[in-house]
């Protein structure tokens, strides 16, 4: 089969799985996960085949696999749905396929497949455990998730959306994938829909990303109206780019290219949780951990960065837009890192870490280093998915302990953990590898290579960004080590931690596979100028990804960024370990600063500035004042007026004139006449005769005078 056909087929198995599970196999957990896993495995196979074939093509950037079909007719042309596999899409297919497959396998174990149904489990709430008898001895075990099939249906739909986005060849298809993922994110964050916090978090995520999406849609509309096409290939033609760069717009003096880039970038600010639209990501941790890993670490938030890399030729035309991008990225990187050091929930630390690392990528793009950003995108997807899945394994182990002891301990609070390295060794070692990769531990972790490349690219030309990222890197290493120390090292601080257990193989196998990637994937991008080992293996990644924008030269080697990256990474790890070795409770933690714990009060600010006024406008202004007061008031006035006219007409015309005068009046008049004339009839003959005599005399007189005249 041709590669183009295969590319079209990649997103389809997960979509089919979604429909099959929803419509047919919802009750059967085994069948549902088999369909889902089979589908994502098929997609993985397809993605790998396409990737390998793409590697074999020389000059893939100039001759990508492309295919498009016409979809919606517009006046003269068509809006198309199409696929494009150039180097960026090939890389995207690779990391998306692997991480998604690993997460699907992990979800089987995470949702406790094979365990008995819980005693008090209701669909909509997380499972609470089942009491089983085992040789006369009763104890609680984790129970299977009641909405198991639904979960797999949703993540299959999500996989469809992400694959569609990665292989799309125009902004429209990309946006379709983008929005499908937004929907799935909402559905999956609010997976346990009976929990109010989960429901609210889902709505918050959708609303916040919607804000970004509106601007992105404006950008797409602007592109279409300026160029008449949405296809990347046609937008990135040199003439089109040149026209866009030279046409000015009335907004802030930006050129058309700059404005489009800015609008599309705002979509990324929402989707990739950059400041100021980052507020949804920490709350999104209400969803099950595989969701956090997939959507909020490896794939959906990466889609924002992926899109920015896609439109990089357009974005790079206007230096002001690039400055905004760089500022937002660097600021977010530092901002999120400062919050992460004060968080106690194991998943929140990772959420802020994700925001911070995405900030790294955005900052790199702002500085023009798109290859470094793409590289970090790939490495980050692997080690962040690894860290999230590892945290899920930790939480599962802790919940085992919670069920065992019967006490209500928060299984996600790091201060309740400790000493887990002995209880959960596989989780410990893989988490350590992921954490070291995140911190940028030299040489043996992927994070080092990608982070080093970002720092090297920003050094020199963008010193403010460089310094900010370096500080953020130090904080990253610091809070990572804090997390590892509190969770795994030392001694258990609660009974739950003392009774933790290692997770099943369906959870630990993905951890191991991802840790292999977290170690090795960096070695495809070793810079040629690196002292010692540079040049032994060619910098394949740079050549492959860098070919998209023509020949891109590698950054010249400089000792300072390398030294900085080593110092901050190792220093941060060391300081973190030293500071938290002996900390037993939050009271001993010096960094529990309120402003950091409360995320710089951004949520409170948004609530006061935006949410409460919006609610006021909706409930009071529009509903009470305008709708009930003005509009209903006007209608009531109108009603009263009409009623007044009606009753007025009745009382003034109908009753007196028509009923009174014409109706009763004539009757009364006639009756009156009759009553008055009646006495004439006395019954006495002689009176009658007198009357008739008088009348006859009158008539005779008249006749005499009339007739005599003649």
């Amino acid at each position, binding site marked *: 089969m041709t590669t183009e056909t295969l590319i079209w087929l990649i997103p389809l198995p997960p979509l089919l799985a979604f429909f099959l599970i929803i419509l047919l196999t919802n009750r059967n957990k085994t069948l549902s996960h088999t369909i889902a896993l089979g589908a994502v495995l098929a997609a993985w196979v397809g993605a790998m085949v396409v990737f390998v074939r793409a590697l074999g093509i020389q000059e893939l950037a100039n001759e990508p696999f492309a295919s498009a079909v016409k979809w919606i007719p517009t006046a003269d042309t068509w809006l198309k749905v199409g696929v494009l596999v150039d180097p960026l899409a090939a890389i995207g297919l690779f990391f998306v396929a692997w991480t998604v497959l690993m997460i699907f396998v992990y979800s089987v174990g995470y949702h406790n497949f094979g365990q008995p149904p819980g005693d008090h489990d209701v669909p909509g709430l997380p499972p609470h455990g089942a009491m089983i008898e085992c040789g006369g001895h009763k104890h609680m075990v984790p129970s299977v998730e009641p909405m198991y099939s639904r979960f797999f249906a949703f993540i299959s739909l999500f996989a469809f959306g992400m694959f569609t986005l990665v292989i799309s060849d125009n902004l429209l298809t990309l946006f379709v994938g983008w929005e499908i993922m937004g929907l799935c994110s909402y559905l999956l964050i609010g997976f346990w829909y009976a929990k109010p916090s989960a429901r609210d978090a889902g709505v918050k995520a959708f609303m916040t990303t919607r804000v970004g999406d509106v601007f992105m849609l404006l950008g797409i509309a602007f592109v279409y109206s300026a160029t008449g096409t949405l296809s990347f290939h046609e937008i990135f033609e040199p003439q089109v780019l040149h026209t866009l760069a030279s046409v000015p717009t009335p907004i802030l003096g930006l050129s058309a290219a700059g404005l489009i880039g800015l609008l599309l970038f705002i979509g990324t600010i929402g989707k990739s949780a950059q400041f100021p639209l980052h507020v949804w990501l920490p709350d999104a941790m209400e969803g099950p951990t595989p969701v956090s890993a997939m959507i909020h670490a490896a794939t959906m938030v990466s889609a924002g960065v992926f899109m920015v890399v896609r439109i990089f030729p357009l974005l790079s035309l206007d230096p002001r837009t690039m400055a905004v991008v760089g500022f937002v990225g660097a600021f977010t990187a530092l901002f999120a890192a400062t919050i992460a050091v004060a968080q106690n929930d194991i998943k929140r630390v990772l959420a802020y870490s994700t925001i911070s690392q995405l900030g790294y990528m955005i900052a790199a793009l702002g500085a023009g280093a798109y290859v470094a950003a793409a590289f970090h995108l790939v490495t980050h997807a692997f080690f962040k998915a690894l860290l999230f899945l590892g945290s899920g394994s930790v939480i599962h182990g802790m919940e085992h302990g919670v069920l065992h002891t019967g006490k209500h301990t928060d299984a996600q609070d790091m201060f309740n953990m400790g000493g887990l390295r002995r209880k959960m060794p596989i989780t410990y070692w893989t988490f350590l590898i992921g954490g070291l990769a995140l911190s940028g531990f030299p040489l043996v972790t992927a994070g080092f290579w990608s982070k080093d490349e970002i720092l090297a690219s920003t050094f020199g030309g963008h010193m403010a960004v460089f310094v900010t990222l370096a500080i953020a890197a130090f904080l990253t290493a610091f809070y990572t080590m804090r997390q590892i120390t509190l969770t795994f090292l030392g001694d258990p601080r609660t009974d739950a931690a003392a009774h933790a257990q290692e997770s099943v193989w369906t959870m630990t196998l993905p951890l191991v596979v991802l840790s292999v990637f977290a170690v090795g994937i960096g070695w495809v991008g070793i810079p040629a100028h690196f002292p010692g080992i540079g040049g032994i293996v060619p910098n394949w990644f740079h050549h492959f990804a860098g070919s998209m924008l023509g020949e891109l030269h590698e950054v010249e080697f400089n000792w300072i960024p390398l030294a900085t990256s080593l110092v901050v990474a190792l220093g941060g790890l060391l300081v973190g370990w030293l500071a938290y070795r002996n900390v037993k409770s939050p009271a001993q933690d010096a960094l529990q600063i309120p402003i950091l714990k409360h995320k710089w009060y951004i949520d409170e600010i948004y609530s006061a500035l935006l949410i409460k006024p919006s609610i006021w406008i909706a409930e009071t202004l529009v509903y009470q004042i305008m709708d009930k007061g003005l509009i209903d008031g006007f209608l009531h006035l109108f009603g009263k007026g009409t009623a007044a006219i009606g009753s007025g007409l009745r009382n003034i015309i109908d009753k007196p004139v028509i009923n009174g005068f014409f109706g009763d009046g004539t009757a009364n008049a006639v009756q009156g006449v009759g009553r008055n004339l009646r006495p004439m*009839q006395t*019954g*006495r*003959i*002689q009176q009658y005769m007198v009357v008739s*005599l008088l009348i006859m005399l009158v008539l005779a007189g008249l006749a005499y005078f009339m007739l005599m005249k003649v």
Partner: protein
Amino acid sequence: MIPLSWFLILSAGLFSIGLFGVLSRKNAIAILLGVELMLNAVNINLVSFWRYGNIADMAGQVFAIIVFAVAAAEVAVGLALVISVYRQRRTVIADDLDMMKW
């Protein structure tokens, strides 16, 4: 000859007296008497116009005789009515016979 007007005056006078009797007498029989007078006055009128008009034309005389007959019939019927009323109501006063009133 005596002027016609004397007969006419006589007739008119008789008629008036008769009319006055009809209109003012209480007793029903007296009213009938008045009616008789009126009829006879009419007779005088008729005959005088015959005598002083065209004697050859018998119409006047004939008319007078018819009037006589009618008067006689009418009196008979009238008296029969009065007797019948008296039998019912025990009165012959015209003013008491006012049942045909409103």
